[in-house]
């Protein structure tokens, strides 16, 4: 087997990204959509850290910032979900249509 190089990690990150995109586009449950977004962010992080092994520590610092922002976004997103659930009693994405004409 070939020694594990950067390309292997990039392929894994791409596969994770595709899985996250499928989750966001096809699931109905808001919580699972948010978890798929976390998958996408993780794939990006893996990409960054894989490249930082080649080109210096900047990738790792950026990955730390991405994790911090993912935490903030998850908190706010779940807050919105709780507020919405209190009004409409459902977690179906299709029912979030109050602003539709």
């Amino acid at each position, binding site marked *: 087997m*070939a*020694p*594990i*190089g*950067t*390309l*292997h*990690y*990039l392929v*894994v990150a*791409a*596969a*994770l*990204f*595709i*899985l996250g995109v*499928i*989750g966001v*586009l*096809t*699931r*109905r*449950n808001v*919580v*699972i959509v948010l*978890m*798929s977004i*976390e*998958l996408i962010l*993780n794939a990006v992080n893996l990409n960054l*850290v894989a490249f*930082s*092994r*080649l080109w210096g*520590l*900047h990738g*790792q*610092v950026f*990955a*730390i*910032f991405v*994790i*911090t*922002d993912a*935490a*903030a976004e*998850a*908190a*706010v997103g*779940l*807050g*919105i*979900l*709780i*507020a919405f*659930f209190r009004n409409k009693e459902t*977690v*179906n*994405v*299709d029912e979030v249509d109050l602003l539709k004409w």
Partner: protein
Amino acid sequence: MQPVATTFFFYFLSGLTLLSGVFVIIRKNPVHSALALIFGLLAQAGLYLMLYAPFVAGVQIILYAGGIMVLFLFVIMLVNIERSQREEQFNKQWVVGLLAAVALGALFVVVYVKGKALFPYRIAQPIESSNTQQIGVMLYGQYMFAFEIASLLLLVAIIGAVVMAKKRI
């Protein structure tokens, strides 16, 4: 520090990550999805350790697996999901979504095949014993501004989450 059994650990950890990713988007029960995501995040921390990034691995375990997923589990428990488990799980437009994702995957494959020369196989091993110190120097030196903005962002997120989740403002 000599790496041990790199190939085995890489395939094992990345297989675990991808498998848990599949379970996240497949399972009906959100608690099962959250559990699968936790295992995926821990496996990814192992991948970071293999990439000579111990600090990012530690941050991933503490923040992602130990913080964000606890938040998710709390919200799943607060939101009563019993009824939603008996409904349809996938969208009406799941075919189009799948096609779009497959197209994106094809794009990735094209990019990686064409640009293979840009990702060299032979890689210098970075020093692992002073990783935290070097990241600290960079974080408080070069990226100080971004660091302060990130802390401000967290403050805004805390206030926003508290305000939105309160019963009466």
